[in-house]
């Protein structure tokens, strides 16, 4: 069984995010970039399926300029077999990414596509769902457990009320939640092995997808500074403040 894992290059979760002085976006110059944590969980899940003998080949795909090859190599060092970089300098929205991925799905015909449920930079939580719709595959999102059973995959989903398990016919799309697994570390010998694994570069322009963005960013602002609290003398003062300052009652 072939598994396709799309991954995204995103700002490292340890880095304190700085907003550009002109509020046009986040300042990424000289900032540590990593594989998006949810995508890393997706890679780990695919590698575990391969270790169990369920998956036979893991293909990792990323959309972006040459720098995202770094994240593809990371995925290869974690255990994926080959990589595809869809080369573009443009900053794309979820829908365009999903359309590009659809073409990769059409070509590669994976039985399972595992994606992160969202990326920690834009927090959209859209690509997996859009890809499922475009490819007309069933989807199991926010997975905390994935069990392949013959021509079905049982996906346990984290939902508001608790856990829900859905059985999907393969091929299917799964998006990962945080508790699905704990990704391994890329060991030094595997980093060297990853260097020799194939990585194909495909220009995004060749995909015949309209790459113009339908979403424009108006303004990016850092969260408001948290202000210090104050002690109130008695209940009366509290009620007064809730009425006049906080205006919640």
């Amino acid at each position, binding site marked *: 069984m072939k598994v396709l894992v799309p991954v995204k290059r995103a700002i490292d979760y*340890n880095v304190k995010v700085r907003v550009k002085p002109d509020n046009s976006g986040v300042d990424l110059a000289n900032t*540590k970039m*990593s594989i998006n944590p949810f995508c890393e969980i997706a890679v780990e899940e695919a590698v575990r399926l391969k270790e169990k003998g369920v998956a036979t080949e893991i293909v990792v795909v990323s959309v972006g300029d040459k720098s995202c090859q770094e994240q593809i190599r990371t995925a290869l060092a974690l255990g994926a077999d080959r990589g595809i970089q869809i080369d573009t300098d443009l900053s794309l929205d979820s829908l365009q990414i999903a359309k590009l991925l659809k073409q990769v799905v059409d070509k590669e015909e994976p039985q399972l596509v595992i994606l992160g449920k969202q990326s920690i930079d834009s927090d959209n939580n859209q690509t997996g769902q859009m890809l499922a719709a475009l490819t007309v595959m069933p989807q199991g999102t926010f997975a905390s457990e994935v069990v392949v059973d013959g021509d079905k995959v049982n996906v346990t989903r984290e939902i508001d009320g608790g856990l829900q398990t859905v059985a999907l016919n393969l091929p299917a799309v799964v998006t990962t939640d945080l508790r699905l697994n704990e990704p391994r*570390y890329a*060991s030094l*010998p595997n980093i*060297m092995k990853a260097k020799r694994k194939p990585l194909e570069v495909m220009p995004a322009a060749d995909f015949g997808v309209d790459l113009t963005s339908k979403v424009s960013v108006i303004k990016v602002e850092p969260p408001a500074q948290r202000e210090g609290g104050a002690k109130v003398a008695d209940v009366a003062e509290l009620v007064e403040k809730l009425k006049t300052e906080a205006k919640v009652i």
Partner: protein
Amino acid sequence: MSDELIKQQEIDFQLYEVLDTESLCDRERFADHNKETFGAVLDTANKLASELFAPHNAKADSDEPSFDGEKVSMIDDVKVAFDAYNEAGFVAGRYDYDEGGMQLPETIMTACSGYFLAANPSTTAYPFLTMGAANVIRSFASQELKETFLPPMLSGEFTGTMALTEPHAGSGLADIRTSATLAEDGTYRIKGSKLYISGGDHELTSNIVHLVLAKIPGGPAGVGGISLFVVPKYRLDDSGKPAERNDVVLAGLIHKLGYRGTTSTALTFGENGDCHGYLVGEPHQGLRYMFKMMNEARLGVGFGAAVIGYRGYRYSLDYAKERTQGRLPPKTNPTDPTVPIVEHGDVKRMLLAQKAYSEGAMSLCFFGARLVDDVHTAKTEEERKSAFELLDLLTPVVKAWPSEYGPKANDLAIQVLGGSGYTREYPVEQCWRDNRLNPIHEGTNGIQALDLMTRKIWQKNGAGLALLQKQIMSDFSQAKGAESQKLIASVGSYVAQLEPLLGTIGKALQSEQLLAVISNAHSFMNVFGQIVMSWIWIRQAIKAEQALSGEVTEQEKAFYLGKIQTAKYFVNWELPAIKRDLELLTQLDSSCSDMQTEWF
């Protein structure tokens, strides 16, 4: 603590701008590598250190290991981190591919070690000690010993230690008493006591391989009679698995100021006459072998001191940016908002000093690591020899300067935090306590100063010094910016004093003033160290100026201007402090040597 253990930009600047680390990939040994593989290896180090080492740094300090008379116990997190380090393949990172290694350059391994040392120095000590001990076995032991002990050490099944110090003999190793007597089976029976042996006992691994210095009875007196032995905690069975106890007993744990997560032990060897030891190499060569490890360990100690200094710097910087206190002229009205303390001049002074000490010390150590690479892999024999001589000269400085100034940086971090800094609720006091070990171990800084002043400067007719001068001149000749040229001129006036000073010292060392002049060894280290560090800072300023002449973002501009400003601070504030030392040395001051014991 701070968001990143070591700023990515700082590592990139040191590795790829100040040093041209990528050029190492042109060498046959590193031909399989490129900037990308280096980056991936550094990423794994950074990730492991951030996720598995840093989170239990404070806990390993507050819940230090304990001994119930039978076993040592410690918090579980240490073993999780230790195992992950081994599984990732770092222990053999420097070794050949066919030994299961990665043939990584020392420069990259040093950068990796920076993440671990910044995250949690005491847990890091276990794999680092093992790597040091494995290196000695790999370099000097017989094929049989290598085949027996190296594989389990490299895979993390066994750890290693170096057992040198005895209760009565620390710096003065010539006087050790531990004995090794040849037994009928060709191995030795070890008898004696060792003290302050780091990692000397624990339950992290199924066995511990002690490298023990001992004297074979009848051998030469003093250091020439010291031999080196492999002494495992458990002797191995025919399949190489730990079996019988080897009469190495933990007498007790020592309770330290810092580095508390690393066990420090008092060990008794051969109390029941049944402690088997295996000779490493030739008899009476033990100290020479051990010094190979010590020299590498000294680079490691310097770098550890630098990055612990750096952690305190980053933490106190973040704190100073957030903590508001007081007002600045002209806005001193009580209705004016209070300012972050980073805006106060004296706080800037303390942060600049920390930046100068820690980033400078890191840069010096990276230069040292690059020399290690050049010693082994430079293209010509001549280059390899030069690298060796320059490294040999600089080793005492690489150990002593960072380990003197790293704790000074941590002291200032405490001061920046004020009352908070003095509490255990904030991490900077632990940085200071951990770092306070570094001027002491692997040869005290006093010994480093003596080594530099009485030996290293003069050896091979000053070949090392000549090479250093050449390197400095070559770096300075690249200065194009006005600021760096000005700094070079300031340093020049001090460098010019070195030659006559060396003349004075050289003569005094061979006269009745010997005791007076060696009592000023610390001043000599200071003079030499501050000049070396001025060069190290100007090197960075030159690279920053070069970068600024191209296109840079606002954020990059701030980074490079910060480098230039710190070089300026170092040359204007720190370097002139050697005037006193120059005076003392020129006068062959005898204030210390004349002091009589009874007068204290």
